[in-house]
């Protein structure tokens, strides 16, 4: 078989081999999950643990179904996600704008940055009682906490990113005549985008944490945290595990699919990988 001809004729075979390889890779990556699930199933099926402490996988799935059909868990999920995205978006915009606006002035940055870094050393959830006293025992307080929890790491990421811009790149821009807002818009901002993507992910992670913690406390409004807390209060471990499962899926889907893709795209576009 000549190489060139082989390349053309081999396509179908390559694809099917590709699928086989992908399956194998998936199996190789999921053996531990499978083993864990099996163990869980065996342990509960054999009755070695009190179902009150660990319900069977089947029970949890059943409960999950019930929650979706009878308790409108979708509403809770929707409320949680909406709050998360809203709070996160507010925090991201506020953090980046503050960072960009004050990061080029040494005076402003040196004054503001330590305050934000200090606040970041405090778990955002510690501000929840304050938020509740200010905004009331409701979703607004939770939203404020999520936005604040995102704002801090985003502002810090923006400052950090601005310091990491290659000085040669800045000099190149200056030498070409860029200055002021043109410089900010066409050089500073694009230059920090890759670091910001990492920051976005970070911010999301903190937002998610702040939100869950807040929802567990502020159980009045709809939200996954409230259902989780309810499950605990009524001693329904199957409800707790079902909700954790939902959170797990949401977490993996957003972090792995959305952020990893965004990061990959930006890194490729900015030439951070794939440079030959």
């Amino acid at each position: 078989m000549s190489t060139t001809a082989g390349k053309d004729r081999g396509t179908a075979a390559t694809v099917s081999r590709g699928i086989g390889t992908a399956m194998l890779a998936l199996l190789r990556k999921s053996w531990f999950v499978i083993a864990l699930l099996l163990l869980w199933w065996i342990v509960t099926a054999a009755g070695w643990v009190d179902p009150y402490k660990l319900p069977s996988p089947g029970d949890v799935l059943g409960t999950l179904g019930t929650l979706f059909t009878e308790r409108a868990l979708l509403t809770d999920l929707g409320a949680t996600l909406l709050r998360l995205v809203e709070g996160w978006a507010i925090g991201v915009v506020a953090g980046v704008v503050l960072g960009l606006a004050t990061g080029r002035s040494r005076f402003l940055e040196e004054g503001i940055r330590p305050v934000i870094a200090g606040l970041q050393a405090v778990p955002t959830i510690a501000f929840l009682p304050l938020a509740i006293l200010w905004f009331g025992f409701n979703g607004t307080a939770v939203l404020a906490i999520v936005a604040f929890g995102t704002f801090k790491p985003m502002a810090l990421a923006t400052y950090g990113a601005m310091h990491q811009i290659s000085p040669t790149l800045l000099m190149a821009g200056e030498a070409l005549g860029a200055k002021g807002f043109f410089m900010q818009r066409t050089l500073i901002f694009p230059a920090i985008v890759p670091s910001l993507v990492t920051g976005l992910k970070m911010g999301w992670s903190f937002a998610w944490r702040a939100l869950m913690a807040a929802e567990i406390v502020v159980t009045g409004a709809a939200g996954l945290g409230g259902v989780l807390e309810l499950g605990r209060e009524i001693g329904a471990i199957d409800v707790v595990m079902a909700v954790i499962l939902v959170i797990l899926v949401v977490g993996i889907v957003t972090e792995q699919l959305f952020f990893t893709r965004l990061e990959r795209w930006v890194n490729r576009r900015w030439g951070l990988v794939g440079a030959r």
Partner: protein
Amino acid sequence: MSDQPALRVVDACKTYERSEHAALLPTSFEVARGEFVSLVGPSGCGKSTLLGMIAGLLAPDSGTVEALGKPVTGPGEGRAIVFQDAALFPWLSVFHNVEYGLRAHKVPKAERRERVENALGLVRLDHVADKHPYELSGGMRQRASIARALVMQPEILLMDEPFSALDAQTRTILQDELQRIWIETQPAVVFVTHNLIEAAFLSDTVHLLSSGPGRIVKTYDIDITRPRDEADPALLELRHDMLDRLRAEVDDDVERRAQAAEVSAL
């Protein structure tokens, strides 16, 4: 006006903030219009510092830098600079990289297009205008960087070790290209390099600087006709001369440092 030099550096010197030693001792030289001048010298002797002051990116502590008869107070149109690592904007295509300076100067779109295309043609990169820097080889990136400078139609072109990150083969090719482009466009050039053959091959004049804090210790005028051949024995001879001189500089410096180290070790 035409008999003014392109550049006149008079006693320019620089000590960086929070630094104990001067980066550059008072240094003076001139560059005639269309002249190709190289600066060579040991690492850290202040070549980039000097170039930065000429570019207007750094202010000299004292002394003056004049470009085309006017004192330099900041980066300006008449001067363009090419850095060692190309310093292309990674998020822009080659075309938009080259266009950047024109946009900053609010050149109308149609004119921008034409000038960018011309510049890309000059460095033979027309075919990759839409590619992003990461898709280019090191040599192509450096050419794009040169195009980004040339598109500004500078009367003075400043280059800081533009080829030193490239492998030997690519470097040789780009040296030939640069010679060709320079002959075509005739800007005054200040060229910083560590490669003595390169300096000798390209330049009308080579200034050799001493170990940091730097100053010009020797000047070579090279009047071999162009286009030149890198294997010209006269060039190799010249290189040998510069190398000896440079070694002496470095040895002096090593000795000085060794003595200083002994003193501080006591």
